[in-house]
């Protein structure tokens, strides 16, 4: 199943820069052949057939004039952007540019930091998530998050995936079993983990742990999945698997990914936002950002001249 995706991707004109094709072919060689019994997964929608990005596309999250302050220090300056529904949106930019801060606004993880103030709005399904009526627990069930460092709980693999349901009060064993299997399958971890579901999750490898974290997140069926540099601690093979996973998940979920790896943004995102010093510099289709950026700062960054 991975292979067919990869082939599609490798030959696709939007991603057919020579370097990109080489990387994809390399990944192809490293992939294990898929088991014959597995039915082929539906292909991701081809980028060509997608509507052109723009105001017309349905959006999952709308950021409107958002500014954020850590105490006296301003970290975000009047950011406005629409995150398209069921697409992968990448945030890129040098360290400290505010991309992770913006990501952590979407599920209000910044609440955990003392002295954070925001101005402006983040709308999820038309509702401002900073409004006092919003229950942050409900919000986080709708907006899942995968962290930079894999952080499985010191519990069994099964309990890790079932955690979100358990804390929501699900006790039905059959339902839990079902969701755990489904989530692990969607996270492409089922074959590796099915025989050791009740072993500690900490015995998994780094890449497996990160996929487990993704399985844990999708188990509660969020609308949006936030990924904060999910591959920065992984080796290239594990990274390739995660990227494959992102491709297969984009049909059901809106995905926002923060990355330092520009190839990664180019490979797996539909839209890319470039941030610099807390400001949104450019937000456009990924192909445009990497091939014909409108802003000279963006061009300088993506071509590696700074940052």
């Amino acid at each position, binding site marked *: 199943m991975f292979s067919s995706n990869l082939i599609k991707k490798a030959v696709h004109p939007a991603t057919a820069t020579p370097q990109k094709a080489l990387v994809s072919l390399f990944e192809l060689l490293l992939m294990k052949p898929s088991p014959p019994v597995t039915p082929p997964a539906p292909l991701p929608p081809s980028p060509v057939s997608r509507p052109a990005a723009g105001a017309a596309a349905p959006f999952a999250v709308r950021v409107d004039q958002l500014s954020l302050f850590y105490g006296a220090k301003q970290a975000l300056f009047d950011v406005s952007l629409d995150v398209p529904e069921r697409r992968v949106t990448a945030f890129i930019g040098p360290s400290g540019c505010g991309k992770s801060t913006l990501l952590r606004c979407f599920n209000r993880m910044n609440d955990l930091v003392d002295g954070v103030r925001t101005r402006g709005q983040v709308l999820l399904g038309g509702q401002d998530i900073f409004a006092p009526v919003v229950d942050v627990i409900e919000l986080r*069930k709708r907006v899942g*998050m995968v*962290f930079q460092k*894999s952080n499985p*709980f*010191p519990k069994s693999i099964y309990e890790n995936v079932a*955690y979100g349901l358990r*804390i929501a009060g699900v006790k039905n064993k059959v339902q839990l079993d079902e969701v755990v299997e489904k989530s692990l399958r969607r996270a492409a971890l089922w074959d590796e983990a099915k025989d050791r579901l009740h072993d500690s999750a900490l015995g998994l490898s780094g890449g497996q*742990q990160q996929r487990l974290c993704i399985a844990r997140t999708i188990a509660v069926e969020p609308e949006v999945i936030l990924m904060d540099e999910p591959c920065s601690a992984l080796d290239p093979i594990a990274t390739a698997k995660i990227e494959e996973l992102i491709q297969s998940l984009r049909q059901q979920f809106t995905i926002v990914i923060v990355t330092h790896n520009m190839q990664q943004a180019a490979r797996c995102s539909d839209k890319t936002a470039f941030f610099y010093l807390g400001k949104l510099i450019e937000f456009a289709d990924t192909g445009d950002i990497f091939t014909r950026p409108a802003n000279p700062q963006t061009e300088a960054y993506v071509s590696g001249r700074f940052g």
Partner: protein
Amino acid sequence: MSDSHLTQSPKPTTRLLQMFRRGDCFLWMSGGALALAALMITGLLLLVIVNGATFFWPFDVTAVDRADGTKLLGQITATQAERKDGGGQIIKSAQTQFRVGNRDLYGFDFVWASTVELANFRRPADVVQIERQEYGDFLGFLQRVEESGRTVAAGAAAWEVLLAKAPGARALAVRATKLQREDIGAVNYAIQKAKLRLKAAARKAGSGAKIDPVFQAEIDAELVRLGVEYERLRAEAGALAVQAAAAQAVFTTIDGQEKKVPLAVVVRAFRPNAMTITQKIGHYLSRAGEFVVGEPRESNTEGGVFPAIFGTVMMTIIMSLVVTPFGVVAAFYLREYARQGFFVRVVRIAINNLAGVPSIVFGVFGLGFFVYFVGGGMDRLFFPDLLPTPTFGTGGILWASLTLALLTVPVVIVATEESIAAVPRGAREGSLALGASKFQTILNIVLPASVPGILTGVILAMARGAGEVAPLMITGVVKLAPEMPFDGHFPFLHLDRKFMHLGFHIYDVGFQSPNIEAAKPMVFTTTLLLIGIVILLNLTAIALRDRIRKKYKTGAF
């Protein structure tokens, strides 16, 4: 050439300086400090072990002639070398200490004698040593065994007869004591209960009002029945005691006195000089066993320390059960919920300083707050009929445990706070990001991950609590507790009772007993036992902690 440049020190004179730069001095200093600490601990343990472990060994008995024509019979327990002044003049001659026993005859257990005056050291094989129910050991030569004034055996045959008859007589005496203590005790308890019911009924009816005559008659009949029972048991116990006292052994001491020893008081009779090594080991084990499981005799200087072991362990367990949840909950509030600021910092400093308050101050607080205020209040509320006799309004194992819990709570709070702080941020955020509330995150993620650290705190608290004596002395420990805090009478667990404690036992035997010299080895033995118990409790907690830790091993985050 470049090699030699590397290996050769350019300036040999600066070697000391180089050593200092490399930190060799520091290394030696820190290693030395550790070695010194290890040496002192080993020395202390060795002292305790050597003195404590030899206590039960039946050492040979020596008979000697003194210069004034008298004789001494006893175990040599100590010797002192002669002391000279600067000019070589002897100011004190060499001395030998004998444990002569027979306290009831001589009034003392030990005799110091000048070694030069002693002659004719010998070990008569037929010396009999008797460990008695009271007055300590007896040393002498067996003449005959009598039963109701009639000689049953004399001469060489008497020893076998004594060995055969002594256990039976002892068993009778033990049964008499048991009857006295348990059966008559139960009847007394029932009488007290009946009187209390009457008193409670009178209080309920109000002053001046008459008690229901049917009820009054019922209680009266009960009291009469119990009175008859009491008399019957007393007579039975008396008869048993007379029966037990019938058999006697007649001894002569080394100075020719004749002494009759009733067989009922003989705990152990043995001939130390005639024992084989196997017999000695058997004797040793038998006494060591009695020490661990037996009741104390002779104002704690003989017999066992079982009530003290039981009291120590039970108090430590109650203390742990109280201090663990209390300290953990407090630490979680401090670390997770309280707004970190000046006030919390002050609270934290106060908690740390609490660990430095002298333990006797905690004892005084426990006496004032737990015993008088809480206990007194409970008595007025729940046990008004017993007043003025206090139930909870006096020292007891519950109040002592609570006082120690208060004393050790800083240890648990500090350890728990540390372990909460060590739970990785990622685990918390992962849980919160899945829509868990803060409480769910603490309960499901933070608490399980900090359990090993919490247990470390509990281990430290237990070690501290089990060895503490001062606060216990005023909150419930007694020299001799007639009843244990856990027994067969409903409701089995009697938290209001006073109890015995090994630490206090050491103090009591070593410094408060009438016969300090004789009790000295017992102090070491008890110390050894207390150390053993603390180690055992700690090992249990450590094993538990390791099991839990294994569950979270290979923590990659």
